[in-house]
């Protein structure tokens, strides 16, 4: 087990994974409770087109992905204002545009397919030192900022109109938040892959909602479930030579099913003891 830590690529993967394991559920819980889960899918497709653009142009792909997804996040916010009655339309428009650009760029430069595979499904072997530093620095920055805006984000998630009347700067915080979503998706792509990143934002949260007795507990449990999935997923994918993204997401699904099963068994025992 300890031999794993001797490899520098594993050290980088575990370090970046630990950050992603906090980042994804921390952002994800607000997305789930605001019924905005689909935004993760939309932005991850745009981030993929950013990766393709980076590879084609010879720029660092994670930076171009970051620029593309932040720009798309701002477009979503603008479109949501235009289509107030059909907020999900904004997500569908951006998702389609993201796939369109990605497919055009991939078909334009066919040789990039192998590199893209890692970004699509996650690959711990390809986490470079630059990736790790970018994930660590930006990840810690986002975690810190969400911690500082925690109570305001909670209020907006529960009652956006009430938060505005109470004097919370809802529009400004929403803008920051959507940029954080875009950054989280891009940073997590290296570990879980563009196609699976939204799963890591949603599934650990779904598991925590089954048992949490307060919002604070829901946040802590989501992070614990995500960390278990990511760290265990990286280790299992190394030994079994699997794609890290798929392994991590499958482990988080397994955790969710275990939580539901244990909860149901306990509930059954409780009912039996009352009879």
């Amino acid at each position, binding site marked *: 087990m300890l031999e794993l830590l001797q490899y520098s690529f594993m050290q980088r993967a575990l370090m970046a994974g630990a950050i992603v394991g906090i980042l994804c559920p921390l952002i994800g819980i607000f997305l789930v409770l605001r019924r905005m889960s689909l935004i993760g899918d939309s932005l991850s497709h745009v981030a993929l087109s950013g990766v393709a653009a980076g590879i084609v142009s010879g720029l660092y792909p994670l930076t171009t992905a970051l620029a593309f997804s932040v720009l798309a996040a701002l477009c979503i916010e603008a479109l949501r204002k235009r289509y107030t009655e059909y907020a999900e339309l904004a997500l569908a428009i951006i998702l389609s545009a993201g796939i369109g650009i990605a497919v055009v760029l991939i078909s334009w430069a066919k040789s990039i397919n192998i590199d893209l595979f890692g970004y699509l499904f996650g690959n711990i072997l390809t986490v470079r030192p630059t990736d790790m530093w970018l994930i660590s620095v930006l990840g810690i920055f986002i975690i810190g900022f969400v911690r500082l*805006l925690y109570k305001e984000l909670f209020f907006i*998630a529960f*009652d956006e109109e*009430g938060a505005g009347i109470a*004097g919370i700067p809802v529009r400004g915080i929403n803008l920051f938040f959507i940029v954080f979503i875009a950054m989280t998706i891009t940073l997590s792509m290296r570990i879980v892959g563009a196609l699976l990143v939204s799963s890591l934002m949603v599934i650990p949260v779904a598991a925590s909602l089954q048992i949490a*007795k*307060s*919002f*604070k507990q829901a946040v802590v449990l989501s992070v614990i479930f995500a960390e278990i999935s990511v760290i265990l997923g990286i280790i299992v994918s190394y030994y079994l030579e699997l794609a890290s993204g798929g392994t991590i997401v499958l482990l988080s699904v397994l955790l969710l099913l275990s939580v539901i099963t244990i909860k149901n068994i306990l509930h059954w025992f409780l009912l039996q003891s009352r009879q």
Partner: protein
Amino acid sequence: MVELVEVKNVSFGYDGNLVLDNINLIVYEGDYIGVVGPNGSGKSTLIKIMLNILKPSKGSVKLLGRDINRFNEWEQIGYVRQKATSFNTGFPATVEEIVSANLYPRIGLFKPIRAEHREQVYKALGIVKMDSYGRRLIGNLSGGQQQRVFIARALVNSPRILFLDEPTVGIDLNSQREFYHLMERLNTEFSITIVMVSHDIGVITEKVNRIACMGDKKLICHKSDSRPQISDLLKKVYGDKMNLLIHHH
């Protein structure tokens, strides 16, 4: 008498359809006003304009003597919105977390909740007799209990004026009786001015000290000192077939 809200020559329309036409209303400190009127008469729209959620197409609104666009003392205002209890019941928040939320603007960005804030939360919960429910999940409470929590949230900053939009919808009769008793206490014991939109004309004319009837895009205010006068007023708004039946909760 101190004017807490002044609505002056306010008109408002949705997509070109006029909903409010040249409304004038003054809410004085200590008032307990009931805003009544038929469905779609613009009662909720009027409250939303008073709270700057909607902008009037014409006219002006003053809150606590200041133009609403420059008003920033929102902690002085409490608001329980329409269907407050029809939130996502799966939301994993405790009663304490929900009531604390209205303190956040006062605590300020980036600052944590301290012990004195918790005291304020439990004081507000005590007023609505929900202080023993602080650790319970909001989704696990009954409709009446949830409503009391939302009133506590509106009270946590010790506001001077409380706005309530259709607060008795979906609440059982017992809870409604307790609710009106609580409103009377807030108005008399805690000197909170109350503006309440309600469809429950019979009860509201019994409880409030001023009534504002809305109909045909206009608003008619009247002191509720004489029952026959209110009855005439309501006939004007709802039509001649309207009879006021008072039932006591």
